[in-house]
């Protein structure tokens, strides 16, 4: 079933009776070549690229709940590639390029909207650091623009430029960044994978791994045993729990990150604005709601809800940056459980168990990485070698001393 403007027109004439479900709902087969554990954005993208780009078959995705029921539907939908480190920037720029072609690739409207992101700075030292990051971005082909105070004021006049503690001196802009419809991304990859023969198996919780002489043989699930040659785990938020079933301890703590959305308003905020110093970032959805968030709560949590001190902190950050949002009423707030890795960077790697692979540790930034993460993980599963942009994301980097610490904050998850 191909989507097109003509198809919408034709269906309108037929009373919309011709639409079909986007994917099958198959029962699990006894064995597969590739099993992907986790039917979120990263898992579905992995299965899609494994089937479509790498031409593999006999692939299944196992999802505990329904497809896209975890963090892919809980994030604040921002896509960007404004990183500094050589281990990060090419990977996120690869992801950005995949975002730019995603809708044509999937024939699905993921509402990718390149409305730009601006990171605000408040001091000379911050300006220097942002200039350096902008240069790193330009070297990777991501593009960047350093905005002065007056230039910025012409673009976003509603900010409080004369805040006593954090006066705004300018911003670093990536015009190609933006937002995407997060559920649509999951559905698009699911539909694409299904049409290339991937079995998407929902309500199927993995309860254990069957290991034999250092090799994975298959997984025990709530719907019976499924044999597999290769098992890729992409369950960020719950990576520690799942990998513990294979006897592994990970360099990860699970934390809760909250997000907020207001009632729908007329267009006011042109892109994404981040106020790092005040623990606050904001954008406006196509429906008009102001979508914003701040820091993680800062303690281990699997609760998918946070506590009020961070709500207060985020609200204070918002009021300090743009006092006008004090008039907006909060519609919803929620929390997601994120894999906080010890250096703030992800893991896409094989494990010491033959045939068992891990994709996790995405901290609070997994959504923007969805296409590249899926592509790189599929590359690893299909070829046995890391994708050229994901070579830094080895699990043994902590022991080797090659951490990828984008924030320079040290080995402590609640500092990232």
């Amino acid at each position, binding site marked *: 079933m191909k989507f097109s403007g003509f198809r919408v027109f034709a269906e309108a004439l037929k009373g919309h009776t011709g639409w079909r479900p986007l994917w099958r709902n198959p029962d699990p087969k006894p064995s597969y070549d590739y099993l992907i554990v986790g039917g979120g954005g990263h898992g579905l993208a992995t299965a899609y690229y494994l089937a479509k780009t790498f031409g593999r078959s006999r692939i299944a995705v196992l999802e505990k709940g329904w497809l896209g029921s975890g963090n892919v539907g809980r994030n604040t939908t921002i896509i960007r590639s404004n990183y500094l480190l050589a281990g990060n920037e090419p990977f996120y720029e690869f992801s950005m390029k995949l975002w730019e072609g995603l809708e044509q690739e999937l024939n699905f409207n993921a509402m990718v909207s390149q409305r730009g992101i601006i990171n605000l700075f408040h001091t000379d030292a911050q300006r220097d650091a942002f200039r350096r990051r902008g240069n790193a971005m330009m070297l990777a082909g991501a593009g960047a623009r350093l905005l002065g105070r007056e230039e910025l004021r012409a673009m976003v006049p509603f900010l409080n430029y004369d805040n006593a503690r954090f006066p705004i001196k300018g911003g670093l802009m990536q015009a190609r960044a933006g937002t995407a419809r997060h559920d649509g991304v999951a559905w698009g990859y699911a539909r694409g994978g299904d049409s290339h023969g991937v079995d998407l198996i929902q309500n199927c919780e993995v309860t254990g791994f069957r290991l034999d002489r250092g090799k994975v043989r298959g997984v025990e699930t709530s719907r019976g045993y499924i044999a597999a040659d290769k098992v890729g785990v992409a369950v960020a938020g*719950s990576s*520690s*729990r799942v990998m*513990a079933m294979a006897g592994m*301890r*990970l*360099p*990860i*703590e*699970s934390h809760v990150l909250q997000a907020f959305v207001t009632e729908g308003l007329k267009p006011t905020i042109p892109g994404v604005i981040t106020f790092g110093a005040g623990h606050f970032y904001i954008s406006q959805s196509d429906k008009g709601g102001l979508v914003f968030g701040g820091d993680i709560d*800062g*303690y*281990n*949590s*699997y*609760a998918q809800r946070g*506590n009020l*001190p961070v709500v207060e902190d985020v609200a204070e950050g918002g009021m300090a940056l743009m006092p006008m949002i004090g008039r907006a009423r909060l519609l919803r707030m929620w929390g997601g459980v994120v894999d906080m890795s*010890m250096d703030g960077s992800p893991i896409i790697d094989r494990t010491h168990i033959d045939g068992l692979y891990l994709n996790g540790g995405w901290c609070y930034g997994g959504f923007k990485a969805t296409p590249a993460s899926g592509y790189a993980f599929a590359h690893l599963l299909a070829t046995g070698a890391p994708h050229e942009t994901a070579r830094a994301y080895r699990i043994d980097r*902590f*022991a080797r001393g090659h951490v990828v610490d984008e924030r320079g904050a040290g*080995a*402590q*998850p*609640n500092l990232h």
Partner: protein
Amino acid sequence: MLIPHPLLGLRDAQEFTYLGDARLIDRPDPSAPDAEAAFCDYVFLRDNPAGVHREFWFHEQGDRSWLVVTRDTVTHEVLGAELARDAALSRTRCSK
């Protein structure tokens, strides 16, 4: 969340900063032959359980004592708290 401080009674968790798993109280022996690997595990690896978790909280905005708080990571229910000093003294490491 309210933390039952053993000396000060119920205190708001906002007064504390968080360090994480209280297993860090058992620092590896730096002169052991496998000290490098043991310290790598100590610094980077965590159990990260869903459920009851013993963890360090520092009463930074209060009496600046370190506590070992027992808390459920699924419900955020705080089940108890003791002074980290008492927890350390009850371990063999500090018994000499």
